[in-house]
């Protein structure tokens, strides 16, 4: 998968293998491959190599690091690599996975002694609270999965392209109540390579470049919890937190734009409620209104803020959202055909964990 993705990235950019002198791996073994294997296996001559924790949260940090590396002269072209085969770990959440070696305070509150298998469990905890506090229901949540599946139906790369309905969602198996099968992503895997280069080099590439114009890091601490946004009271979160918190909106200042300039949003959607959490965290709607915002059609194609037009992790597949970044690039180059967001010029990556990147044409 790394080989295919790397070849495709070189073809797309017109760069040579020898131009790539930086590499950052997001998710190495056991789900993927490590930086040294990739560098050796592809015959690269790397001046700056790095690798993140084996988890799907570091995308914005990896892109920011790559941008800083080319900006500071550590490298000219950094290949950001995510290639994962979920089958290597068996069913996600099953015993013996690396996640459950860090109980409570670990990746997603794994706690085998209590039967807490995750990450679905963590998202389900947040979803239950969300339903209770804001009056939403599983039928409302279905609209997220249905909308994003419709997007996938327009994407030939998507693993699931068959349309689904709210009734299909309601008839799907309860996995970790209140979440159903169709609230869960596709854990097939895949490979993505994103090349980050100096702007002057990128301008000379085969296709029009996409510019990274603002970053915000992943937040961590007791305000944060897997599956939630701050202020939901999950794990040790305080309930007394403004939603959105103004400090999370600094990304717009970083990029020099107003939020209203954002033409589409891409977010980590391993579970459908993550979309609601991100919409509220970043103030695209008021606290507790994301389900109505979704029901009103805003997140679909043709809506005010199309979300995950590739079909997301929910329906395209789970490459830790690097597949979302590939879609952002395609959208900003008007390559998306039926699922093209009209006049897309500014696209935001933003998740329930507070990390964000602004991409511009």
């Amino acid at each position, binding site marked *: 998968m790394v080989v295919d993705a790397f070849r495709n990235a070189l073809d797309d950019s017109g760069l040579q293998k020898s131009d790539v002198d930086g590499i950052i791996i997001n998710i190495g073994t056991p789900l993927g491959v490590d930086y040294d294997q990739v560098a050796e296996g592809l015959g690269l001559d790397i001046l700056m190599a790095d690798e993140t924790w084996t988890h799907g949260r570091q995308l914005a940090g990896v892109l920011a690091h790559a941008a800083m590396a080319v900006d500071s002269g550590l490298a000219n072209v950094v290949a950001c690599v995510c290639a994962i085969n979920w089958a290597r770990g068996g*069913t996600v*959440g*099953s*015993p013996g996975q690396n996640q459950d*070696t860090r*109980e*409570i*305070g670990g990746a997603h*509150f794994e*706690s*085998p*002694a*209590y*039967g*807490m*298998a995750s990450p679905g*469990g963590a998202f*389900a*905890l*947040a979803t*239950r*609270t969300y339903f*209770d506090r804001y009056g939403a229901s599983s039928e409302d949540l279905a609209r997220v999965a249905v909308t994003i599946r419709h997007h996938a139906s327009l994407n030939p790369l998507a693993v699931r392209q068959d349309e689904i309905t709210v009734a299909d969602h309601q008839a799907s*198996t*309860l*996995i*970790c*109540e*209140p*979440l159903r099968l169709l609230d869960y992503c596709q854990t097939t895997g895949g490979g993505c390579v994103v090349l980050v280069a100096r702007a002057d080099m990128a301008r000379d590439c085969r296709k029009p470049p996409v510019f990274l114009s603002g970053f915000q890091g992943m937040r961590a601490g*007791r305000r944060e919890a897997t599956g939630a946004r701050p202020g939901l*009271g*999950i*794990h*040790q979160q305080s309930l007394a937190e403004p939603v959105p918190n103004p400090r999370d909106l600094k990304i717009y200042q970083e990029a020099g734009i107003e939020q209203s300039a954002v033409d589409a949003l891409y977010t980590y959607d391993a579970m459908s409620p993550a979309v609601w959490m991100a919409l509220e965290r970043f103030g695209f709607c008021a606290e507790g209104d994301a389900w109505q915002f979704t029901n009103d059609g805003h997140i679909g194609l043709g809506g005010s803020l199309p979300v995950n037009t590739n079909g997301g992790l929910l329906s395209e597949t789970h490459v830790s959202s690097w597949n979302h970044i590939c879609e952002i690039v395609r959208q900003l180059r008007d390559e998306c055909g039926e699922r093209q967001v009209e006049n897309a010029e500014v696209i935001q990556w933003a998740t329930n964990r507070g990390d964000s990147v602004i991409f511009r044409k």
Partner: protein
Amino acid sequence: MSSVKPSPTISDYNRPFYKYAGEHELRLQKCDDCGDFWAPPGPVCVNCLSTNYTWTQVAGKGTLASWVIFHKVYYPEFAEEAPYNVGLIELAEGPRLLTNIVGAEAGSLERGMQLVVTFEDRPDCVVPQFTPV
């Protein structure tokens, strides 16, 4: 297939928690300097970084902050109990614990319901659980 549920992974930080659970006592770390309780167990007070703390018995009372019901069986030892719940309990002292709620029908669980600690004696360990008042 063993029917013994998975044991907690014991670390230097949580060892006392489960030792006291073995004596049917629910104890948390309480800072000797600032008085805060915290969870999950850790090396220092999360408020003031003090290493002076005492494993202090708590009232064992709390409310249900959230809960889930596992229908899919990830851990085969839970197959007989499925569907089973996992609840997030907010203790009267503040910290929240992830545990099971026993002695309650799935349909009777409600956010904010009052719970008290109970202990499940397993062949190789004792784990705190909660039950409706």
